[in-house]
């Protein structure tokens, strides 16, 4: 069994993986980090989105062995139980969460958007989140939450 050494949410870990595992299996089955969800499993829905070396990544498409040496950020690495990240806080306040299955991927994608572009236009928000599906279809609340989070994050700088 290959051993993959990587950093997950600022913590160095070594994980036994099967050679044909994808990154989501490493995270969920190998490390027990159940925040990252598998939706479609084929790279379309965005539920499994994580950051690998700061880049948006579909954990259902990335091979686990490729993560050797990488720095991975999952939803567990965003905010804490005591203090939500401003993006999470905005999602809660705007009711941008219904069943919650798409939420981890949306929060990670929003974080990537606001890291790159702190003041996105509505068009830019819609375009950036276009690969994250919400099947409860609360898209307007999500848009409101991202707008609000953008304001919050900028004020804190």
């Amino acid at each position, binding site marked *: 069994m290959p051993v993959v050494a990587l950093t997950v949410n600022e913590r160095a870990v070594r994980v036994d993986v099967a*050679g044909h595992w994808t990154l989501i299996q490493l995270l969920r089955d190998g490390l027990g980090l159940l925040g990252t969800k598998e939706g479609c499993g*084929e790279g379309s829905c965005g539920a499994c989105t994580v950051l690998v070396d700061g880049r948006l990544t579909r954990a*259902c*498409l990335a091979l686990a062995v490729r993560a050797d040496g990488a720095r991975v950020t999952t939803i567990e690495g965003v905010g804490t139980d005591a203090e939500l990240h401003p993006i999470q806080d905005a999602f809660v306040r705007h009711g941008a969460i219904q069943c919650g299955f798409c939420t981890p991927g949306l929060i990670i994608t929003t974080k990537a958007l606001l890291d790159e572009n702190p003041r996105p236009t509505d068009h830019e928000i819609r375009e950036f989140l276009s690969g994250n599906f919400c099947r409860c279809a609360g898209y307007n609340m999500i848009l409101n939450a991202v707008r609000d989070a953008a304001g919050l994050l900028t004020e804190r700088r």
Partner: protein
Amino acid sequence: MILRPFEYVESKTVDDAVAALQGGGEDARVIAGGTALVPLMKHSVLRPSLLVSIARVPGLAEIAPGVSGGLRIGTVTTHWAVSHAPLVQERSPLLAYACSRVASPTVRSMGTLGGNLCYGESASDPSPALLALRASVRLHGPGGARIVPITEFFTGFYETALGDAEVLTGIDVPAMPAGARWRYLKWTPRAQEDKALVGLAAMLVLDGRRCRVARLAVGGVGASPIVLTRAEQALEGQELDEATIARAADAAAGEVEPMADLQGSAEYRRDMLRVWVRRVVGDLAEGRTS
């Protein structure tokens, strides 16, 4: 959804990859970003026993100046990297923009330009741009290296000119002519992240109203991305009035063999191609470039 077991090799050089492919038999596959290959494996469309990764071969993710103001782009450069690179934005804004329209941000930051071409999909966004720009691809195989014009690379429905155990290592993109006007039009009738039903790349060089150079290529319509040769011929050397542009649009509609699928019928594709050639060329002729 899980994958069937396979062997995995992380190549250190292109020669390593070629040797591994030669030893791996017919169902060995090259993997880079995996955004095309992994879904096909999950659906058991492909069942490779060996994956040969070229993702970590030094130098294959580089973007460098090419000859005469062009570009040399390494095969595992991601769409995100191509679209964000100042050198590409400056020298080949058409390619930078086309890469910025691939799927979604996450797929763009995983998927690679070379992988996109080797997949051979008609509705690829970079392919029509590279056809319009008359780019070339560098292939490296057991017999050595060769350069193939991209106009000869796409040979049929998900088929390319890649030979056995051959690896695409880079893309050479000629400079865009000074004063060139360009557009990549991605027509997706349903949603932003859909594949192009018509992906039209256009580049024109004009003297006043007279068209000196016309480069038009389209993906998503036929079995593979193609140059719209007759439409180009209908424009070059002509004054770009309404009648000429309409003739070029008709020529484009007449030279494609459209597919039908859930996104649209063959006739819808043909009609939309006619509409978008007319509008895009019309806009460029009027100086409306975005």
